[in-house]
């Protein structure tokens, strides 16, 4: 057995679990797995003691409450009715089917991680894995598929014995799902067919550092099909992220069907066919929830709402002012919901009453936006006619209070962008989660005010940066604009993303308020054609920071030398799953161990 500390030396042998577990040890025995390996599922035993970091089982005599082979290759479940909550059973069932698919149909031959003349294991000597036991050790909460942060215990243990017995134990079905995800990463495809691991025996104890681990995808600036979104959710889940934030509306288009306000998407979508129908939206939420990923819907307001003017022009102030849009918005088109308008309140009341009951079966959260509100726009708002913060602030407080009251009355917890708290100095409910994006200082300020915070500093975790300016330059300005960089250049490569510690600058007594964070995919320059490579594998770097923490067991910053071959392997696994992720190194670098280091001294 080799312990985790020596892993880098053997990285090229393919031992790459991403994100890295809390504890992981493995041997060198080859085991094969066949397509008819039985999965057994048992519920109602003791629990995994998470706190100590070592494995202590209570009530080790596991009763056979449920003990049945489970196999269901068609567990998409999209025919469930809208109000039917997902059970832990649904999650485990789906995960078993996915495990099967990943190991036997979506796997890869790992030649890039071995020297040129390597030998694959020989099938004729095969020892097969006899069974996979899944043991749920506790009763789990009803909302296991849509929990508030911290409610569901995602920890698990995985044990694979040298004679081929696999056991995954967890305190929740989500923990079982995470354990099965790790299990798939032990296996490779053989070039002659079949799947094997070279790592038995394996012992894993694992638990996430942060309870909120997300990716934010903007589907308004460019439209993404239901399948693009589902594919992205699959990759999110495979990286053990548990939140998928859908920035579903913005100034540029409104792709979400709202039956009570049909004009919104009819007139506001880029095209009549570029719309998420009620059924599409439900399918997407289900697809996330069934993988232990909670989809968080954001309707950004009062800014970033210009598109509403196409169907409800009276609700929007400063609509598409040109050419000096930059007086009124961060990017064109300008336009903001009026701030002191009963018509706006009525509109939002109708919108929330329609949408939020469709969200609550799948999520406990609703994001009401609140970023980049432009004060000048309210000079053009006939209900306000002022850009004076003293006038605007009380109106904003009323606006947000109304919205959040309704969100709560519909059973959900509000999330807002940091400006609402830090720039507008609003009084927010204690339940409200504040999402930071501008700086580490902002995170410290949010938690200092006693609020729960999400991190995602744009200088580290914005995936859109560095692709160049997308705005056109007037001829007079063009010459001075070379080399046409964008506002948040340079490109944030995975190393930069990986070097970000969500707890930077947060005093220890406030760290429990940092729930986690999100990597952000704003879509000014991303559409379905380039989505995969813009997000992956860079978002996976954020996923490991959020699951494993930015520091290793010794309290040091995580090592890129150790991470880079593992991330390369995760990238190959994503490609095998049909996600067009980018390579981060040449095969030369991963075939020969760590020979692509700077200043490497022999």
């Amino acid at each position: 057995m080799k312990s985790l500390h020596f892993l880098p030396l053997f990285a090229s042998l393919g031992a790459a679990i991403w994100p890295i577990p809390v504890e992981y040890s493995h041997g060198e025995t080859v085991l094969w797995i066949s397509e008819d390996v039985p999965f057994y599922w048992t519920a109602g035993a003791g629990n995994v003691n998470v706190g100590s970091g070592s494995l202590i089982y209570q009530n080790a005599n596991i009763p056979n409450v449920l003990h049945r082979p489970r196999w269901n290759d068609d567990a998409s479940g999209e025919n469930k009715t809208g109000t039917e909550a997902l059970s832990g059973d649904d999650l485990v069932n789906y995960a078993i089917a996915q495990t099967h698919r990943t190991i036997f149909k979506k796997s890869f031959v790992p030649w890039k991680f071995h020297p040129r003349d390597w030998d694959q294991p020989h099938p004729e000597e095969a020892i097969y894995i006899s069974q996979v036991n899944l043991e749920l050790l506790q009763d789990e909460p009803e909302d296991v598929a849509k929990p508030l942060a911290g409610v569901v215990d995602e920890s698990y243990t995985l044990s694979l014995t040298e004679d081929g017995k696999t056991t995954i134990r967890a305190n929740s079905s989500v923990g079982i799902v995470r354990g099965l995800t790790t299990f798939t990463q032990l296996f490779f495809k053989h070039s002659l067919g079949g799947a094997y691991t070279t790592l038995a025996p394996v012992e894993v104890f694992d638990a996430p550092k942060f309870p909120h681990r997300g990716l934010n995808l903007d589907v308004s600036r460019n439209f993404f099909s239901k399948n693009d979104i589902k594919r992205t959710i699959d990759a999110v889940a495979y990286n053990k992220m548990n939140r998928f934030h859908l920035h579903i509306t913005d100034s540029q288009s409104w792709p979400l069907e709202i039956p009570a306000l049909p004009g919104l998407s009819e007139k506001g979508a880029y095209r009549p066919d570029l719309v998420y129908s009620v059924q599409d939206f439900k399918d997407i939420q289900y697809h996330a929830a069934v993988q232990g990923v909670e989809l968080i819907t954001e309707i950004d307001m009062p800014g970033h709402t210009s598109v509403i003017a196409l169907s409800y022009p009276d609700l929007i102030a400063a609509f598409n002012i040109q050419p000096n849009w930059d007086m009124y918005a961060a990017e064109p088109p300008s336009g903001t919901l009026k701030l002191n308008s009963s018509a706006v309140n009525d509109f939002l009341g109708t919108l929330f009453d329609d949408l939020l009951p469709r969200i609550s079966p799948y999520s406990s959260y609703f994001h009401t936006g609140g970023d980049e509100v432009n004060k000048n726009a309210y000079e053009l708002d006939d209900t306000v006619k002022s850009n004076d913060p003293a006038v605007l602030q009380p109106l904003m407080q009323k606006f947000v209070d109304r919205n959040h009251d309704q969100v709560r009355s519909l059973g959900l917890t509000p999330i807002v962008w940091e400006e609402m708290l830090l720039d507008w100095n609003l009084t927010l409910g204690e339940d409200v989660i504040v999402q930071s994006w501008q700086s580490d200082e902002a995170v410290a300020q949010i938690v200092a005010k006693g609020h729960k915070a999400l991190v995602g500093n744009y200088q580290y975790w914005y995936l859109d940066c560095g692709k160049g300016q997308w705005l056109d330059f007037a001829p007079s300005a063009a010459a001075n604009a070379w080399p046409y960089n964008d506002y948040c250049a340079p490109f944030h490569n995975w190393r930069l993303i990986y070097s970000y510690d969500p707890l930077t600058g947060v005093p220890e007594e406030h760290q429990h308020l940092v729930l986690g964070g999100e990597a952000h995919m704003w879509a000014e320059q991303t559409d379905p054609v380039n989505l995969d490579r813009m997000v992956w594998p860079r978002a996976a770097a954020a996923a490991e920071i959020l699951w494993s923490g930015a520091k290793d067991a010794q309290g040091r910053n995580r090592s890129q030398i150790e991470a880079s071959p593992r991330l390369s392997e995760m990238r190959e696994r994503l490609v095998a799953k049909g996600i067009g992720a980018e390579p981060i190194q040449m095969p030369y670098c991963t075939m020969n161990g760590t020979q692509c280091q700077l200043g490497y001294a022999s």
Partner: protein
Amino acid sequence: MASLWGFCLVHFFLCTLPVTALWPQPRNLTHGASTVWISPSVQLRFIDERSAPSHVWRSLGDGIQYFLGGLLPSQGEEKHNPEHDDVVAAFERARGFIFNHRFVPRKFHPRKFAFEPRIDESENAPHVKTLIVTLTSLKGATAENRGRASSDESYQLRISESGIASITASGSRGAIYGIDTFAQLFYAHSLSVTEGYLSIAPVHIVDRPAFDHRGVNLDISRNWIAPSDAIRVLEAMAHCKFNKLHLHASDAQSWPLDIPSLPGLAEKGAYDSSQIWSPEDLRWVQRYGQLRGIEVYLEIDIPGHTTSVAASQPELIASAYREPWITYAAEPPAGQLTLGSADVMAFLKTLLNDLVPRNAEVSSHFHLGGDEVNVNVYGLGSDSSATKDKIRAEVQTIMDQAFEIASKYKQTTIVWEELLLEWNLTLPSNTIIQTWRSNEALAQVLDRGHRVLFGASTHWYLDCGHGAWFDPATPERPGPDPRASPPYMDQCAPYKNWRTIYSYNPLEGLSPKQRHLIAGGEVHMWTEMTDSETLDGMLWPRAAAAAEVLWTGTGTPVSEDTTRRLAELRERLVLEGVKAGMVQMEWCLRNKGGCTV
């Protein structure tokens, strides 16, 4: 045109639409505002006036007629005149593009705006029924076309208001480019699967390239790039009027090219047995390019960048895999051809006599590399002039033999700038020098009287800006190299966005007298962080920005019109199955003028 402006004043919205969206922009374009239709039954009538006259039309079915002065195809032959395969193929592609990919430019018009002409089912609605392509002798070509080496790439295109369409060119490559322009003029109609249209007749285009050599350099060694990927690259290149695909076919990291007379090279030097280009693969790619007017030529980089040879013949490589690599190479692994070795000379002879004649079947160029030769590899002491003199003499010997073999097969050789500017080698007078480090290098090569290619890493390196792929030295002490510290930038950051590429002007500061020596340029796709999976997005649409500089000329400022035309090309590439990156979000394209600072 006066009529167009009158139309605009009345119909304000139409003035906000793109007038044309050709890429690259033709040299000379005039047009009106009439609608002309086209249907899948459009025929090609092909006349080669350069052959002896005959009065027999020959139909080859599917709407293609040859009128090949005297060259009657014999019965039963599938390809009746291979000389014109490329023109026929171009026509088939154009027709396929218009009616199979069916590009409806919705994204480029305001929401709900009826931008398409009303379907006109009347008999006399003007239709392009036949595209007449005429190859004419130089005598008949326009004055503008005459007297240029590239005159066979020029063409004229006319489409009348009544639908008469003709292309005149003095060579088949001009005809191919004309046909691609023709295809770009038409849109599919959302309400009809059988009707395409253009709304700018009459059209008259007189077009020719600014530079002869318009290339993409694709590294197929550092990461696996499949032959089928190169095919897709060629398809996209054809839409931008590129005419050279430079395959950087071997490097230190892997040797993907099967050389039948040296089988160990790829067997042991490729990354994996699945990562090899067979001679048939190479031929397929080269032939595919030929049909699109694109010359696919090979680079075997010597004497540096050769470590992968050591996998099969370790004795040929000095300092192979030596550490610390940073002393011996620009990137790992270290290793260069051994100097003064009869084995190396014999190896190169076998290699080049195998590969060069195969290359020569479709290309007149062969690239012999010569970049980044490292002095320390040979253990001859420090970077002194005596050391360099010794290395220079040995490298000269190696290169002389290579030049000789290339010349035997009538290949024009290309080498990287260092062989001339750093090593002062004596090179054949017709050797083209490929510069990459700076515009100053370009000027120096011109002063030495050599033909030259541009493509500076500051503007035309498509790999830049994705961050360092190197790992730090140790977790605790990343080392002094800036690539090991946040934000972990690579050596040629930032990312070259398409505007940076478009604004590259290699001619700045050069004397007009020297310009005739500039053969053209290449945009470079090095593949340390790019493979099959992401190639399309790294190349396109940015390489297309270089294509327009090479075709239309340097020094054109970027305008919103440039953005919109490039965005439209991008949509066309996506329809071709090329996963091109984005130019601008849909809102900006739908709201012309709305995204300007």
